[in-house]
């Protein structure tokens, strides 16, 4: 296909792709631009695209007025914490399933997947009540636990598909070479598994960072991560677009960059290995 494209067509396709791409990206671009406007310019009609007085005051004011940093820290704690805990639980399981599969392995994997498909509203009430009784509502600990559990199946799955690609021969060779289980993991498996583990972590951080059902329902003020904090701008009186934009830009920038770097691995994780 590639070589049959005429120069004329190539230009036409290029223009079309760029127009559509920019159109799709525009809301994000607009948010970033608005974050550098004053509140007045943000709602100006007709809106100004680039020719306005660029200002950074929204960024400082978001922090001053609502302790933005605290929500960032909450988001970081929840997404990184759940990823770390999830990794500790998921790596051994995925390792076992990839390298010592039994007749039941496939069934277990499928079942894990099915838990991911359970709609949150189906278990919301009991979780809410249990958390209330245990004092976990609006705590970082509680939310981290929930995020770990919500994403555990994806972690196991993704790690499994990566581990599966490590040839079993190599582990057997290590065993023949006299490596104990611990040495096998440390010297052979770990170095080969690092790329897979890294992209699993990345996907998990992105998913946890953006999760917006549990974070909205189980937090109030103390443990609210960015998803919940941004939602507070939905009140009608909160028409501070420039500040909303500044807060939003900061909330999405790190994840957007992470996502851009890991597109290919994300496809695999998001489709449970069905598309690579």
């Amino acid at each position, binding site marked *: 296909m590639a070589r049959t494209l005429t120069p004329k067509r190539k230009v036409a396709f290029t223009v079309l792709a*760029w127009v559509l791409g920019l159109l*799709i990206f525009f809301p994000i671009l607009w948010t970033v631009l608005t974050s550098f406007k004053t509140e007045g310019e943000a709602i100006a009609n007709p809106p100004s695209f680039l020719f306005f007085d660029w200002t950074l005051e929204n960024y400082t004011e978001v922090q001053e007025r609502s302790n933005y940093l605290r929500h960032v820290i909450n988001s970081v704690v929840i997404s990184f914490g759940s990823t770390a805990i999830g990794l500790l639980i998921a790596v051994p399981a995925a390792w076992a399933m990839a390298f010592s599969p039994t007749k039941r392995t496939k069934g277990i994997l499928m079942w894990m997947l099915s838990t991911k498909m359970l*709609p949150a509203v189906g278990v919301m009430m*009991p979780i809410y009540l249990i958390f209330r009784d245990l004092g976990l509502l609006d705590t970082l600990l509680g939310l981290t636990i929930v995020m770990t559990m919500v994403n555990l199946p994806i972690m196991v799955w993704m790690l499994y598909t990566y581990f599966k690609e490590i040839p079993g021969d190599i582990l057997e060779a290590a065993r023949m070479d006299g490596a104990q289980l611990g040495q096998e993991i440390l010297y052979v498996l770990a170095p080969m598994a690092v790329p897979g583990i890294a992209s699993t972590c990345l996907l998990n951080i992105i998913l946890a960072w953006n999760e917006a059902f549990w974070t909205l329902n189980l937090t109030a003020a103390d443990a609210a991560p960015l998803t919940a904090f941004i939602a507070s701008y939905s009140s009608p009186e909160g028409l501070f*677009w420039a500040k909303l*934009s500044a807060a939003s830009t900061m909330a999405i920038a790190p994840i957007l960059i992470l996502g851009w770097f890991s597109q290919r691995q994300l496809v695999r994780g998001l489709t449970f290995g069905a*598309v690579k």
Partner: protein
Amino acid sequence: MATMHTRSIARLMMAPSVILLLGWMLIPLSMTLYFSFLRYNLLMPGMEDWAGVFNYEYFVTDPAFVTALVNTLVLVGSVLVISVGGGLLMALLLNQPIFGQGIVRLLVIAPFFVMPTVSALVWKNMFMHPVYGLFASLAHGLGLPAIDWLSSAPLLSIILIVSWQWLPFAALILLTALQSLDEEQMEAAEMDGASAVRRFAHITLPHLARAITVVILIETIFLLSVFAEILVTTSGGPGYDSTNLSYLIYTQALLQFDVGGASAGGIIAVILANIVAIFLIRLIGKNLET
């Protein structure tokens, strides 16, 4: 593959994941099931008693339920059509050797990484606002009356927002699938004299069939429980015009504190999701063999 020794270690290594997930799924789900048969309201503690199928009857016969169910299906269906259709076109375009392919690709997939509350609010305020929104400015510039999107077409607005988030997902997955298409197969078809349209219909599309199915199923799972977008834009309104099943259960639970009713709704949602999940799990299971 393994010897007895490694097998028992393997079991031990799997135990934490299996036990935790089992607990996470089984305990709350059976509690939900149990609650769904109780008269149980958080505002009236100590008044719990057996209600039989009353909660289900109440939930299902509530006119809001039918509205929410229809809204859910319309939302899922429309977003699927827009995101898969648009995503496919975008993927085909991005698969061409165009200038700046990598950058356009980054632009296209970006919305998928935006948290739902941010995208909902950005659209609500900066685009769909009847006075200051960009759409209003645009309409004004064209001499048309501005539309109050969220109150006059609430469901459509939410469909637009959610599609914007999921089209990139479809485009990314389908593009990846396209790139794994065997070049030689295409060349063979070309040698056989198949036109571009026929090559697309007979080779590209069948090759994408599985990826498209996966996209549809995964999106359906997520779209069935769209929540944050509704919460921060329309709050389900006006009336129940943009309430979906998830949101209806949420209002029942955390706004009316009706645990029994919400649980009955939750069970219904679980059943709905399971119908889709069965297909998805089968599909992925087939893939596991290879």
